[in-house]
């Protein structure tokens, strides 16, 4: 779902905001927020594109996202590099969650693929792999940075 934020930006938010995901033997929860604006596409004159300014993809063990498992973030604040918070605010992993572990750019499609392949999240459709490949292909075609990888 897309909501207008301030300063001409928009936020794309998972709907419902926290999505319950069924795994082999449990549930985990995902919330994703991507803040973006619409800009002229420098590579395709006359066309417009969505330009991502910040994102947060967070996975937790409850619908409050706590304890948090992973949070991939890139924001217009320090540190400005894309990073991962692992087990933030989890007392069993004291201090670990405060670390800003550097990553490349992490797309929503990356998170979905990771959760399906590594966490055993049950996909809602049989052709999920093709759908994610197609979506990632489109995103990486127009991404200004971070989209150049093997799909």
């Amino acid at each position, binding site marked *: 779902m897309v909501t207008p*934020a301030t300063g001409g930006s928009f936020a794309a*938010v998972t709907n419902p905001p926290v999505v319950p995901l069924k795994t082999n033997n449990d549930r985990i929860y995902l919330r994703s927020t991507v803040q973006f604006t619409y800009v002229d596409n420098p590579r395709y004159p006359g066309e417009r594109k969505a330009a991502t300014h910040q994102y947060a993809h967070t996975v937790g063990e409850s619908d409050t996202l706590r304890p948090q498992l992973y949070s991939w973030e890139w924001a217009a604040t320090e540190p400005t590099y894309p990073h991962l918070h692992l087990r933030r605010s989890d007392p069993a992993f004291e201090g670990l969650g405060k670390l800003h572990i550097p990553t490349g750019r992490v797309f929503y499609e990356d998170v979905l693929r990771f959760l399906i392949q590594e966490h055993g999240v049950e996909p809602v459709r049989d052709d999920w792999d093709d759908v994610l490949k197609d979506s990632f292909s489109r995103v990486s075609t127009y991404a200004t940075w971070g989209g150049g990888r093997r799909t």
Partner: protein
Amino acid sequence: MSPTLSKVVEEGRDELTPEEAEQFADEQSRQYLGMSIGEFKELASNDALSHDDPMVVHIALLAGVKLHSC
């Protein structure tokens, strides 16, 4: 699901109006952080938000609030 979201989903829309977005941000801040979006913005401007809660960054992105750190 919040009243705002319920209404939007029922109507089959996937985009909020600015007024709905403001209400949605306030509902989300109250639901997950126990404060109004006005209080959230004030704490953010004073760099007084706890970054231990994974919801903080999501509410900030939703409301277009710049955090001092994350």
